[in-house]
């Protein structure tokens, strides 16, 4: 599998680290125990297209949001993860 980093270009899988589902969002401080439990422990296990966080640690050290089909490994989009620090360059 190869991932086209929006900053570095196409790189092999070994340069990246998988974090997991990009969907969970940290709940508000007063959201309650159930919301925090969901955020920390519960993950969907999607057979199909999902958004994932990947870290390009062997390259530019940017966090990326990768849209990948878990059945085919087809990657349809890669973009800088929101809040990861760097502004998106024109790819």
């Amino acid at each position, binding site marked *: 599998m190869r991932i086209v980093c929006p*900053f570095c*270009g196409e*790189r092999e899988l070994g340069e990246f680290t998988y974090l997991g589902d990009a969907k969970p969002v940290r709940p508000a401080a007063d959201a309650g125990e159930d919301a925090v439990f969901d955020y920390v422990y519960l993950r969907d296990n999607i057979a199909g297209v999902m958004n994932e966080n990947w870290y390009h*640690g*062997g*390259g530019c050290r*940017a966090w990326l949001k990768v849209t990948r089909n878990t059945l085919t490994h087809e990657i349809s989009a890669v973009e800088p993860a929101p809040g990861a620090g*760097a*502004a998106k*360059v024109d790819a």
Partner: protein
Amino acid sequence: MAEFSWDIRSPLDRALVSGAYGARGDAGVLLTEIRNFDLVQVMARRGKAADMAKAAKGRFGVAAPETPKAVTTADATLIWSGPDQFFVLSQGGKHGTGALAPAFAASTSLSDQSHARVLISASGAKARAMLAKLSSIDLHPDTFAVGTAAPTSMDHTSVTIWRGNDRVDGQAVFNVLVFATFAESLWHTMLDSAAEYGVNIRHSEELT
């Protein structure tokens, strides 16, 4: 009080033995460790990338690279190292952190990496073949032209590689920056990779 000796020594001081190595005959690879350089990591603070770009243009007279490139000025090389960050490679203190601070202090964090990295230059007819064994980057001249740079991994070790200007004999030159503590390991790996082509090893005080 204990006496300390702060002699600056290359991390390759012991590993690097000048001379011929590997297959006999004309050396296919020339490996040179460049010593005594100034290296500053320049990183934009959050939301300050445009200000950093302006400061770089004012300081160096050229735009700092915003894509994986190395830009050469009269006395410095600006090497892209990731989004909103680049290295300044130079010699003689003209572009050390102290010299750069006035231009960049408002927008940018500067970090002196002069003794935290080892700089290895590889050239010769088989340099590309030797590096191709260690790198997943396509080093073909059509793809990795003069001035192309890449932060990547070699033998599971983080490196920044860029193609410098060709030698006078037309041979390509590849420059590799590696963390000091990993330098000896990568150096031995390079030697093993290059041995079949014959290697000429040396170190130099001059940026080429």
